[in-house]
Every structure is written in structure tokens, then in C-alpha cells.
């Protein structure tokens, strides 16, 4: 792998609430090569969105990054103050959100929202900024951008709004884009359009991307590598083909088994029993152990470390064979 453009090491983001410490992200490490697309997969509440926001430094109190580093081209972002960080955000590091209906400010014109983003990072005239904004809209496939740019968000459909958000994120040709389930709120047809567009644009610009999703089929078609998150940790990561075709971790196996297309029509659908544990009261040992059919005694006592296994890396005593010693 080339020198990673983004290198996250041992990231821990905890929320200090009245009810206790919620360990949303509890030791996540991931690397992103230039131009690479990483699918970050997990259930709701597994900490994948918080990972994304932590990378951008957008964690608000009571949340806080308590440990770990986020290096963008070698520079540790966790040590930057808010002002320095805002020079990185939107320029080298951009983000797209889940719900395009909420992402754009409803009372400001699209042009205002794009131009302010250009001007935040580039010392250009307003006219030049407007030209760049129009070019960005054209790039994401918005028809007649010269006229549409002066519309308000409510005059766009959901898919078009997400394109506007993507155009905003791509304005400064960022090194890394974090896409937080950007197609979840869209129709399936629009979803595939957006997916294809993102893939094409990332290739063109050379932007690396973290695609956060709970949809394995999206990851299969889009990503180069995949990281599966469970209860604030990455339990399995590796090339998409290796992880999806030969999953090692019981949770990954369960996730893949839960995709209905694998099931015989009429047969009972596979499911992972139970629910994700409360992040403020994680069990000792492996967080997945209470739901895991293969769990052994060691799983309940000691949390597994993530270790290379075949082409992937897995955090599971059973898969790693350490449990065999018992």
C-alpha cells in the first residue's frame, strides 16, 4: 500500500453523559490509501458515524476524542485548534451527510452556500467563486447549473440536493471525503446514480473516500476495502472480495447472512439474535460474545485484538484459533 493519506490510530471518542461514559468509538484504527474507497460497515449505534465526525473534529460536548491520532498526510488533526481545523475542513477533508433534505440551509440560496465554501478556502473574487460553484454543479450532473444555482434547496429533489452536497464537498478537490450513508435516504434508482457518480468523481479527482453504510450490497459494488464495526471497534477489515466472500468474524458472517437476497424464497430469514450492547455498559471481553453462537469462555473474559488472518484482519478469538488452547 502507498503511504496512507489518512491514518487513524487507536481513536477513542467517548461521550460523558449523566448516565455514564458512552464509548461510541473505542480504539478504531484505519488507513486510507490515496484514491482508495473504504466501506465502513456496521449496525446503527456501532459508532461508524461518530468515527466519521471524529476524523473531521466535529464532536461536540459532552463528546470528546480521548485517545488516538488522526493523521492527514502525516499531520495529526486531533492536536489542531478549531481555527486551524476549520482550514482543513472543506478543503483537504470533506464530508457528505445522510439526509440531503437537512444538509443544506433552507433559507440560503444554493449559490450562497457554494460560494461561501469556495471563499472560505480560496482567495478568489466572488465572480470567480461563482464560476467554480457552477462548474462543480455541472460536474455532479445538475442540468443547467447557471440557472439552478440561484434556486433554494426546497426547489430541488432529494437526489439533486445530495448532488449539491457532493458538489460542495468536492469544490476544493479534497484528499479525503467521508460519506455518511449519503444514499440511505434516497430512492434506489437515485441511489445507484449517486453511487456511480461518486465513484467516477473520486477516480477522476483522486480523492480517497470513507463510505459509511449499513448496506453491504453498496459496499460490494463500490469499495476497495471494507471495515466492519461493532460496538465502537473494528472487528474485521480487508479487501472487499476477501471479507465478503470469506468472512472470518461471526458478526461479519451474520451481517452477510442477514442480507435477504441470500435466502431461499419462503425460508425464514437469517438474523443475528439480540441487539447491539449499550455502549455505556460494554461487557468484558468481546462485545459481540453475548450474541455469538461460537463464543467460548475466553471470549467473555478477554477482548480479542485485531490480527492479520489471510488477506484480512480479524478481531476474534475463535477465528484466530487462540480459543483452541482451552
Amino acid at each position: 500500500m502507498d503511504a496512507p493519506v489518512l491514518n487513524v490510530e487507536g481513536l477513542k471518542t467517548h461521550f460523558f453523559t449523566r448516565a455514564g461514559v458512552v464509548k461510541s468509538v473505542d480504539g478504531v484504527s484505519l488507513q486510507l490509501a490515496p484514491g482508495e474507497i473504504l466501506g465502513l460497515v456496521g449496525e446503527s449505534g456501532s459508532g461508524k458515524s461518530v468515527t466519521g465526525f471524529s476524523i473531521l473534529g466535529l464532536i461536540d460536548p459532552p463528546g470528546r476524542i480521548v485517545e488516538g491520532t488522526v493523521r492527514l498526510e502525516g499531520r495529526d488533526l486531533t492536536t489542531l485548534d478549531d481555527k486551524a481545523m476549520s482550514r482543513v475542513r472543506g478543503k483537504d477533508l470533506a464530508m457528505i451527510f445522510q439526509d440531503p433534505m437537512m444538509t443544506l440551509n433552507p433559507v440560503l440560496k444554493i449559490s450562497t452556500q457554494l460560494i461561501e465554501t469556495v471563499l472560505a478556502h480560496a482567495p478568489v473574487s466572488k465572480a470567480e467563486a461563482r464560476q467554480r460553484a457552477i462548474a462543480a454543479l455541472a460536474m455532479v450532473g445538475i442540468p443547467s447549473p447557471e440557472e439552478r444555482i440561484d434556486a433554494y434547496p426546497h426547489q430541488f429533489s432529494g437526489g439533486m440536493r445530495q448532488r449539491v452536497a457532493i458538489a460542495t464537498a468536492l469544490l476544493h478537490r479534497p484528499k479525503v471525503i467521508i460519506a455518511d450513508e449519503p444514499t440511505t435516504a434516497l430512492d434506489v434508482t437515485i441511489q445507484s446514480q449517486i453511487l456511480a457518480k461518486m465513484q467516477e468523481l473520486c477516480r477522476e479527482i483522486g480523492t480517497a473516500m470513507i463510505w459509511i453504510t449499513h448496506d453491504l450490497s453498496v459496499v460490494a459494488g463500490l469499495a476497495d476495502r471494507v471495515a466492519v464495526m461493532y460496538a465502537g471497534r473494528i472487528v474485521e477489515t480487508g479487501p472487499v472480495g476477501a471479507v465478503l466472500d470469506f468472512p472470518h468474524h461471526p458478526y461479519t458472517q451474520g451481517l452477510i447472512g442477514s442480507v435477504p437476497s441470500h435466502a431461499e424464497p419462503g425460508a425464514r430469514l437469517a438474523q443475528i439474535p439480540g441487539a447491539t450492547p449499550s455502549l455505556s455498559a460494554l461487557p468484558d471481553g468481546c462485545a459481540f460474545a453475548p450474541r455469538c453462537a461460537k463464543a467460548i469462555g475466553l471470549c467473555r473474559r478477554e477482548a480479542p485484538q485485531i490480527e492479520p488472518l489471510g488477506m484480512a484482519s480479524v478481531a476474534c478469538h475463535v477465528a484466530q484459533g487462540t480459543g483452541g488452547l482451552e
Partner: protein
Amino acid sequence: MFAFILRRAGQGLLVIAVMVVLVFFGVNVVGDPVWILVSPDMTQDQIAEVARSLGLDRPIQEQFFLFVGGILQGELGRSFVHGTPAIGLILERMPATLELALVALMLAIVVGIPLGLYAGLYPDSAPARGIMAVSILGFSLPTFWVGLMLIMVFSVMLGWLPATGRGPVGHFLGIPTSLVSWQGWVHILLPAINLALLKISLVIRLARAGAREAVLQDYVKFARAKGLGRGRIVGVHILKNIMIPIVTILGLEFGSLVAFSVVTETIFSWPGMGRLLLEAIQRLDRPVIVAYVIVVVCLFVVINLMVDIIYSLLDPRVRLSEAAT
């Protein structure tokens, strides 16, 4: 847009008609103005003469139809007390009241919005708690008491500001106003603060609630993710969103500032419409009361219309034709 304004004007006329009927008969129930106007040593004939000269000897329904006929010809009747046209009396006093209400409104905006924004952005900070505590006081203290306290502290004890009256009246663009001179501002400050106090508290609450809601919105997070500075996020993205409810409420409140400045005007001897109304009610000066009501209703209708137009400018999702339904 034109149809919208026309429909609004129609609604306004209806409101005026209803109010005129209610007030006309309502004032008559309160008492007979003749007995207030005459002096005790007048003879029965003289009293009858007064009643006849004012048209009060006719049956009430006849008086009403005469009055309505007058209105349709643009004549609101003459004041029983002053003997001059009632509408003239009110319009003469109106600039003073409008000027007071405008300054109070400005105070509410200039003081209320920044304080409310701050309290909304840093809800757990000590200053924010202080602001909220003061706003509760502003809500709950009665206007007349605050007015008296203001006079007591700033006029009597400190001697900084005059207790009563309006400053010298100059002209600005042909409008008589006391705001052109320093003395005018010195005089208007205390009554304006008194009148504004409740509105400041209201704006603080609105701005705080709006800001607290707005900071949680995705568009604020997205604005941060775009790398915008805090000033731009607060001053443009958040402020423009919270202005929508604030403008609506303030517009309506401006009407009530004008209409109900009675207490403040009385305490500070401010020569405005409010005091005129109070005098008119005491003397059962029916034409003045009815004229006042008509003027205030007109004011409300115009203000509401303006609020709707500003609203549509602030919030692009609002179309005026929809707002009318």
C-alpha cells in the same frame, strides 16, 4: 401578490366593522356621556340642549346609523370634550406613540437578539443563566412598577434622565419627531426601556430557543464541515433561520406596543395616543374611543401585511398566496 394584499384589506375591513359595532354599543352601556359633560348647576333644559347638540337625544340605533353614515363619508365624528374631529386628535398624537414604539422595538431587537443568541449558543454558561434569569424578571414584573422604579433610580436618585414628558419636537422628512435632537433621545430613553422590557425578554426567549434548535441541525454541522468560520455560521446560517419566528412575533408585538403603550405613556406623561385614549374613556368621549379603535385595527392590519411580506422574503419556502389561506 396584489390579490393577496386585496384579500388582506378585505379581512381588515371586516374586523373594523365588527369592532365599530362592539365599541359603539359598549361605550353606551358604560354610561351616559351627557352627565359627565354637564356641570351640576345646569338646568334640565340646558342639559337637554347639550344632549341635543351632541346628537345624544336620539335613539341609540339612530345614533349608530348616523355614525356609520359619517364613517362612510370619512367623518369619524367630533370629540364630545374637545369639539374637534376625533380622528384629528388621534393623528396629532400618533407620531409620539409611534416614535416611542419604534424605539422600544429597536431596543428589543438590538438588545434581545444578541443576548438570546448567546444564551442559545452557550446554554450552560454563567452569563447565559444570568440572561435567562433577567428575562424571567422582564416577563413577570408589572410594567407600571418597573416604570416607577426607573423614574425613581434614574431621575430621582441619580438625576441622569428626565422623569416625564417628550423632548423638543423637530421634523425629519416632514414627520414631526423628537428623535432629531439629543434632548429628544434623553427624554425617550426611560419610557422606551420601560415599554421594551417585556419585548426584550420575549426576543431573548425566541432567539435562544431558535439558536438551540438550529445548532443541532445538520445544515449547521455541514457548514462546519465546509470549513466556515464561527462568525459566518452564527451570523448567517443560524441568524437567518431564527429571524423567521422573531420577525413574525415582533411584527405582531409592534401592534401591541402601539396600542397598549397606555400604561407607559401615563407613567411618563408621554403625550401619545395611549394617554388620549385613557382620557377619552374617563370622559366617555365615544367618538375618540371609536376612532382610536379604528386606527389601531388599521395599524394591526397593515403591520400583519408587512410581516407576511417580510416573512416571505426571509423564508423562501413561503409563498404569499399560501400564507393567505
